[in-house]
């Protein structure tokens, strides 16, 4: 196997790596954004539940959640939707990302400030309308750099899925290592691909968010 062949083989894991990263990011977003608003505006008991969710999921190593979803859920419930390794990995990452994104958005909501809500309410907007038209658009701008880092984290942590045998970049790299005994080129290649997947997006979001924040005086 020459280097080109090795590279192509490793790259064949790229679509799977991207799918896990993007889908878990979206799942994290769907969980995290509402949680952030609950944590900010809802009643105390609900806030405590959200807090607990954040603390628990941030406290468990990703690999434990993944293996538990894959092996454990079936034994506990008697059936399991997570016998698909791709799904187990994606959901495990998404659940934790939900905890992270909840924190990112909560900080951003605080950055927007309660005054914007009061001003919106004074026009007769409902609280929900105020959240949709006034708070969320500003929240995204403030949260952009944090979301960029979160996305980068998910791309990197998607490598854990290789433990479950998902054919993503890390798994492909491992196969090359085992079959060719080359331990240098495959890992350097994988490292390079991960950097290319994370660095540009995280940097772009960071710059865009910072510039927009400055322009709007947020």
């Amino acid at each position, binding site marked *: 196997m020459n280097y080109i062949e090795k590279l192509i083989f490793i790259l064949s894991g790229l679509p799977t790596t991207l799918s896990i990263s993007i889908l878990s990011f979206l799942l994290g977003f769907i969980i995290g954004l509402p949680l952030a608003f609950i944590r900010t505006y809802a009643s105390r008991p609900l806030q405590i539940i959200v807090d607990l969710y954040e603390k628990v999921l941030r406290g468990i190593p990703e690999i434990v959640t993944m293996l538990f979803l894959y092996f454990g859920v079936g034994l506990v419930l008697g059936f399991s939707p997570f016998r698909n390794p791709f799904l187990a990995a994606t959901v495990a990452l998404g659940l934790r990302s939900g905890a992270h994104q909840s924190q990112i958005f909560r900080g951003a909501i605080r950055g927007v400030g309660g*005054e914007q809500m*009061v001003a919106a309410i004074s*026009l007769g907007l*409902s609280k929900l*309308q105020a959240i949709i038209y006034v708070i969320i658009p500003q929240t995204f701008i403030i949260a952009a750099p944090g979301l960029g880092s979160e996305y980068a984290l998910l791309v990197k942590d998607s490598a854990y899925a290789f433990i479950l045998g998902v054919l993503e970049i890390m798994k492909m790299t491992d196969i090359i290592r085992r079959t060719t005994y080359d331990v240098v080129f495959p890992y350097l290649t994988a490292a390079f691909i991960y950097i290319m997947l994370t660095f540009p997006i995280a940097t772009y979001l960071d710059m865009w968010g910072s510039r927009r924040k400055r322009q*709007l*005086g947020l």
Partner: protein
Amino acid sequence: MREVVMECRNLWKIYGDIIAVKDVSLQIREGEIKIIFGPSGSGKTTLLRCLGLLTKPTKGEIFLRGECLTRPGIKLNKYRARIGFVFQHIWLFHHLTALQNVELGLRRVLKLPKDEARRRAMQALREVRMERWANHYPAQLSGGQQQRVGIARALAMDPEIILLDEPTSALDPELTGEVIDTLRDLAKEGRTMLIASHEMGFAREVADEMIFLDEGTIIERGPPEHFFTNPRTERARRFMARLIKQTMRER
């Protein structure tokens, strides 16, 4: 006598052991302008916030055209739309242009179609002489310009009364003039307004009544001339003297 637009009866607002508003009753009739003034911490902001339905009073009643707004279970959103509010620290929506700031309530609360909302928003911006700046973001405007947009935002909803909470006190002295001019225009149009302000020249010119607030309660009230010539209470007299001295110094 003209119809009473807004009224509060025996209004109280208590935070913990601080009494912010203490047994305040007042009425504002159609086309009237009343000025509230008093030292900082005297409860002006809290009183206006209660009347603007932005803070729930602890006790007492608020009426808008005879309708009680403090009865339990009432949906406040649609009443807030009928009461304009201008904030001391302006609080424009940072992510929206001047025009979009004014349009938001028209589109989402009054549910006007896009063209109609735009037309009315531009009209309101024209009234505060800000139409040239319609497409600027708040961060690109001076404090005085921002506050004029803040006034346009309230004005565009065509409210029955506008409550203004010290609209010029957060601005640099050289910028207060343009905002005062705008308010003068509104006064000429016969808008009903309750204004917390220490701009005594302006008050003297437009106010139907001035209300002196201290420690959360109305100490003295009367037409401007009453306060400028011969306030009854010692507290009002001292406060007026201080304000007038301060105004002279600024000039």
